[in-house]
């Protein structure tokens, strides 16, 4: 399930074109004039950022976290609570949401990385469920399963198109920052941990320190995504921390392809569209999501982008031969 060797590396001019095309595409969405598309694109950017934060752990470092929703939810509740109780204005609260996500990762991370492989996955799941349980039950503080409604964001951000550009202006620099992290020497160490933790350790690298750092960075971006979502919907619910949310970003990343940088964003787009379409016809959307995931695991283990790349390469091979 780990990514290809070249998957997370830059590829010269193609790389710039890829970024330009993505940015242009998202920037032009509001021209469609349909608020449905703007809302959908907004959600795709937020969930894409969330899924990319997950992929820093999974696709890059090889740590399958099943608790990513805890960081996302804590970021959202940071915004919801600070604004709801009138402590801070939205921009300041939003700035604190990645801090909250990073702090949570700093608390849970050392416990989770004590074990590796499947154990790590299950520990992230268990601790995330714990955080969810606390948010769900602590009525006095978080509002319990009522969530928080009517989060008072500034009126200037209530217009969907404005908030959309606000999201865009935050999400793309975040994507770039994540890209920098992956391509830095630090990121190279993370990738070598994915490929072979033992050998990386033999090089004198303290693996756990790097894994913890990856969790903290990932937690920060997940928290920011949560904060953006809180401002987008202006209402939040403990479900944002539920394990199904963690599962959703895993599915998005796998579907898009964990070994390509934009894979999780593509996956977020596909899944959100599928959920929206299925939601119109049936209440049983889980079975569809589960069925799609099952099919991917068995037939297309490299995801949409990976499979597509494979086809292109094979086709080029035929042409060249």
């Amino acid at each position, binding site marked *: 399930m*780990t990514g290809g060797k070249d998957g997370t590396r830059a590829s010269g001019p193609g790389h710039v074109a890829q970024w330009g095309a993505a940015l242009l595409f998202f920037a032009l969405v509001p021209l469609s004039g349909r608020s449905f598309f703007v809302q959908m694109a907004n959600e795709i950017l937020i969930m894409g950022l969330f899924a990319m934060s997950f992929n820093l752990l999974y696709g890059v470092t090889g740590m399958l976290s099943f608790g990513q929703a805890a960081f996302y939810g804590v970021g959202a509740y940071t915004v919801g609570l600070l604004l709801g109780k009138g402590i801070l204005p939205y921009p300041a609260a939003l700035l604190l949401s990645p801090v909250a996500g990073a702090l949570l990762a700093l608390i849970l991370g050392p416990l989770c990385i004590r074990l590796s492989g499947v154990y790590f996955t299950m520990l992230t799941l268990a601790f995330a469920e*714990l955080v969810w349980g606390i948010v769900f039950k602590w009525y006095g503080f978080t509002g319990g399963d009522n969530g928080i409604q009517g989060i008072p964001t500034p009126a200037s951000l209530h217009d969907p198109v404005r908030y959309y550009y606000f999201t865009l202006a935050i999400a793309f620099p975040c994507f770039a920052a994540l890209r920098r992290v992956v391509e830095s020497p630090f990121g190279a160490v993370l990738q070598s941990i994915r490929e072979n933790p033992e050998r990386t350790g033999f090089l004198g690298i303290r693996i756990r320190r790097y894994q913890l750092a990856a969790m903290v960075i990932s937690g920060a971006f997940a928290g920011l995504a949560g904060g953006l979502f809180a401002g987008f919907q202006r209402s939040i619910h403990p479900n944002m921390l539920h394990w199904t949310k963690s599962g959703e970003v895993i599915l998005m990343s796998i579907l898009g392809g964990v070994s390509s940088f934009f894979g999780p964003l593509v996956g977020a787009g596909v899944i959100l569209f599928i959920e929206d379409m299925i939601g119109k016809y049936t209440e049983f959307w889980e079975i569809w999501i589960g069925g799609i995931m099952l099919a991917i695991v068995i037939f297309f*283990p490299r995801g949409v982008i990976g499979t597509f790349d494979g086809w292109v390469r094979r086709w080029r091979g035929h042409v060249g031969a």
Partner: protein
Amino acid sequence: MDSSLILSQLISGLTSAMTLFLVASGLTLIFGVVNVFNFAHGSFYLLGAYFAYQVVAVSGVGFWPGVLLASLGAGVAGVVMEFVFLRRIYGRAGEAGFQILLTYSFILILDDVVKMIWGTDYKSIERPESLSGQISFGEVAFPAYDLAVIAAGLLVAVGMWWVIRKTPFGRNLRAISANREMASSLGVNVPLTLSLVFGLATAMGGLSGALSAPVRTVTPGAGIEVIIGSLIVVVIGGLGNFWGALVGAIVIGEVTAFGILFLPQWAVLFSYIVMALVLVFRPEGLLARRGAS
């Protein structure tokens, strides 16, 4: 606090410990032998509970035959999952990640299948009449059904130990756990044994669900609660360790039962605290792993 209250909490803790043990030991068995972390194991608990509801409450089969049928049904579903789906990804690069995803997709699918067939309402089964009363020991009385569940759990524990240690099937199973290729070249039918182990373990999960159905109401979504409970159990006991699952289940059952006495709302927190402590001081689990036995 008077001693009869302590005793009754002790018994109630043991009862939930046994239902946890039945799921966790199956989880650990599959992990030890098949080398798969069956994330969907709690869903077989769910299936067992709903099958029991169907057979006992709807079709009117007697309680114990119904429980056995439900357990058997869950086991058959487990074999199908292993034989049709899981088998295709054995040995693939990065298998662990795919295992989690594949079994995760089964949680989603089985959850919805259950909702489609039985709806989302709470379901429940009556306890069998012979076990609906209390059994008294001197001054204290315990619910007869709880005692029956504890007895059934212990019976399965001993039975499993016997199967693993004393039968040819158990010998094959241990051989595969130690070295799958070697076992195969010595003539052990590995694919068949893996399917059977999967069936046996999921049947135990189903049994747990069926036995819990009269005590807890049956709802969709119970699968994930159960898998997280059993996960905590196996982390405490040591994954792949059969007796570790028993020890872990008793620890968690009792910690939760007594946690309810002191801080009812936050009782669930205690099991996480125990798990965190084990992780810090003994990350390999209380009983270090020694093969599948």
